[in-house]
């Protein structure tokens, strides 16, 4: 896990030292409906919500070999919501006892001039995309089913095209570090979605 270049002190204590537990999977477009139906039944009794987000990924190349990555995300369909800046650490696969991928994460709500600020700091935008889909909740678990759209013209979020014929499914929990118990709940939940979608620990390093 690389330390942020801004402060060389490790971030510890309080609500800042949070970990994201993650399971991922994907479904084809045609089986999306049945998955959503299942999720509506399993998840908390709330109105199903859709979202349309624009995400930009910023890089800062320092002395280290690997660049520092920050993700800036804003909601395109809901107004008045703050931007969301997110730092994600290096994912850890862990052993068999832990059923989910774990990575350090820092979530900050920001104002909308975040991109200017990042650029001023020396970050540059690596890529951007639009995510469109559905979000569910069960307790502290968040289930996101969305499709990623490529932005054809940089900066213009109107002209987009889907990246694939499938939807990405993510089951995530943000919890304080060391609470591996949550991964058991996640595994149980993933089991209940089993025939429709297989949620697994996917190591991004292996895909590259």
């Amino acid at each position, binding site marked *: 896990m690389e330390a942020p270049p801004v402060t060389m002190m490790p971030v510890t204590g309080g609500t800042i030292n949070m970990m994201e537990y993650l399971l991922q999977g994907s479904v084809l477009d045609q089986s999306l409906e049945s998955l959503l139906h299942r999720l509506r039944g399993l998840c908390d009794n709330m109105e199903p*919500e859709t979202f349309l987000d624009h995400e930009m990924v910023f890089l800062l190349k320092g002395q280290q070999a690997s660049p520092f990555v920050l993700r800036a995300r804003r909601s395109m369909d809901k107004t008045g919501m703050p931007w*969301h800046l997110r730092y994600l650490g290096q994912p850890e696969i862990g052993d068999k006892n832990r059923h989910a991928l774990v990575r350090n994460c820092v979530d900050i709500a920001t104002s909308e001039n975040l991109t200017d600020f990042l650029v001023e700091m020396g970050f540059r935008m690596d890529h951007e995309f639009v*995510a469109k889909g559905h979000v569910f909740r069960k307790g*502290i678990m968040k289930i996101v089913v969305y499709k990623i759209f490529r932005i054809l013209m940089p900066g213009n979020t109107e002209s987009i095209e889907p990246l694939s014929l499938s939807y990405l499914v993510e089951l995530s929990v943000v919890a304080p570090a060391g609470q591996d118990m949550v991964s058991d709940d996640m595994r149980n939940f993933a089991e209940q979605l089993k025939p429709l979608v297989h949620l697994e620990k996917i190591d991004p390093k292996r895909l590259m």
Partner: protein
Amino acid sequence: MSGASAVRISIESACEKQVQEVGLDGSETYLQPLSMSQNLARLAQRIDFSQGSGSEEDEPGPGGRDWASPGDAEDEEGLVKFQPSLWPWDSVRNSLRSALTETCVLYDVLGILKDKKFMTLDPVVQDPPPPKQNPQFLQLISKKKSLAGAAQILLKGAERLSKSVAENQENKRQRDFNSELLRLRQHWKLRKVGDKILGDLSYRSAGSLFPHHGTFEVIKNTDIDLDKKIPEDYCPLDVQIPSDLEGSAYIKVSIQKQAPDIGDLGTVNLFKRPLPKSKPAAEVKLLIHLSLPAENQVRLLFQFQLCTFYEIEIFGAPHWQTKLEAAQNVLLCKEIFAQLSREAVQIKSQIPHIVVKNQIISQPFPGLQLSISLCHSSNDKKSQKSASDRQSPEDHLYVLEHNLHQLIREFHKQTLSSTVMPHPASAPFGHKRMKLAGPQAFDKNDINSLQSNEGLLEKIIKQAKHIFLRRRTARTIDSLASRIEDPQIQAHWSNINDVYESSVKVLITSQGYEQICKSIQLQLNIGVEQIRVVHRDGRVITLSHQEQELQDFLLSQMSQHQVHAVQQLAKVMGWHVLSFSNHVGLGPVESIGNASAITVASPNGDYAISGSISFDCDHKMYLRVRFSSCFLLESISRY
């Protein structure tokens, strides 16, 4: 062979001589034809006597068949071979002899038969008859036999019928169980775990955060004896409720004078309420459905009672339904109490709240205590009966008990609705305003206002304070009105109240002089801690919760009214008002406040009357009158 008739017919054998062999030269050697005797012997040999004698044994009558029938030519050589050395007629003679013997025997038998002395001939019976029996008895047996057969068939049919009936019943019971299960499913959350059916009593899906699992188990109640009469209230489905949720429970809220001894508080209040079985559950059920505004609670309570019966009628009170509702009520009461005691410990107030066992004690006002207790009566009858004797049922604050239920429901709703989905979707869960705090640079007050969330206990204490203040105000006004006849005091309570505020309009009038003298109108707004008095002219006076303040204020208003009334009366009578003061600083020291005084002169100026109005310690109003000109007289007239 030869004859002397006109037509000569020569008869000869077709083939005169049989050819024995034909020589190589063509010469034929003939067999010598048989002589007459030889031919006869040969023919006689061909007679098959055995055949005739054989048939003779079978048939009773004489007469051999085939006597003259020629035997088969094929046997000829066999016979010849059989008795080659015997005389040619020997077999014929033997056969004839044996035939004769048999004929003789037959003749003798027939001779004996003819006499019918020693022998008779009977027709042959195929089956020998069964041993000799009575024909009637025979009939009986056959009838019995056929009847038994018929009975057998009937029995078999009956058995089959009863079996199918039993099967039907079993099916019906099974179906009943399923239909009951379906009904249960419509009202309660069920899930299957292994071979068990578990249900959920908790309010978790409604937003409760109470950690009790609240699981009940559905049991198939089919082990009932088929032969016995099925009881009326038999239900194939039963539920098993966790032992800590059994019985009935309710939250009891009461306001008392300071308890004499805090030491025995813990033992108080675990008493059983003598109520019909199904009632508490239905009550609470209704409480939950009602989301009327909190105002007008008396009426609400009334409605609530009405609907209780209605509810019971609708459901037809199936056993499991009432059971589950009661258990759910217990669970809700426990949740309320747990929440209250948690808050009681957490909240720092000037006078700390005391949590003792199943009771929370708080002091809303000095000398007064609000006690909230969880009364859970399981089947333990012994549990503190004396407590129920000690506490009269009137000190129940039903309104607050109802409001507690309502508050917890609001609390549930809040937890359910406050969690909005994050946008953008990657953001963590949480309040929207909390997320905006950073970007919009909230200051400490803003953030504090976000976090300060009034708890259940604080709200209920505030409500209790208000209720107490309202009650005491009413009591003060009533006691004044009953003690002081003139001027009269009237109170008009407003029906439209808030849980924290209610209002009363107070009128002070002099009976019989309403036309002359305008009454004083006061609007009393009773809040949580204080009473605001609004005069007709818009002046606002704030009184504290102290009873004395209100009383003094009302008395001063009454004395002012009285002076005012005298003034008005003097005007009407043509007297002149010489001086008038609401608070005179002279004269004897009054026990409360200052006296009001007025001096009036008669129309011709001969007499002047001065009067002062004051209240003594008994809250009686006195009017002292002095006649000024000729004589001085002090008369005390009591109003």
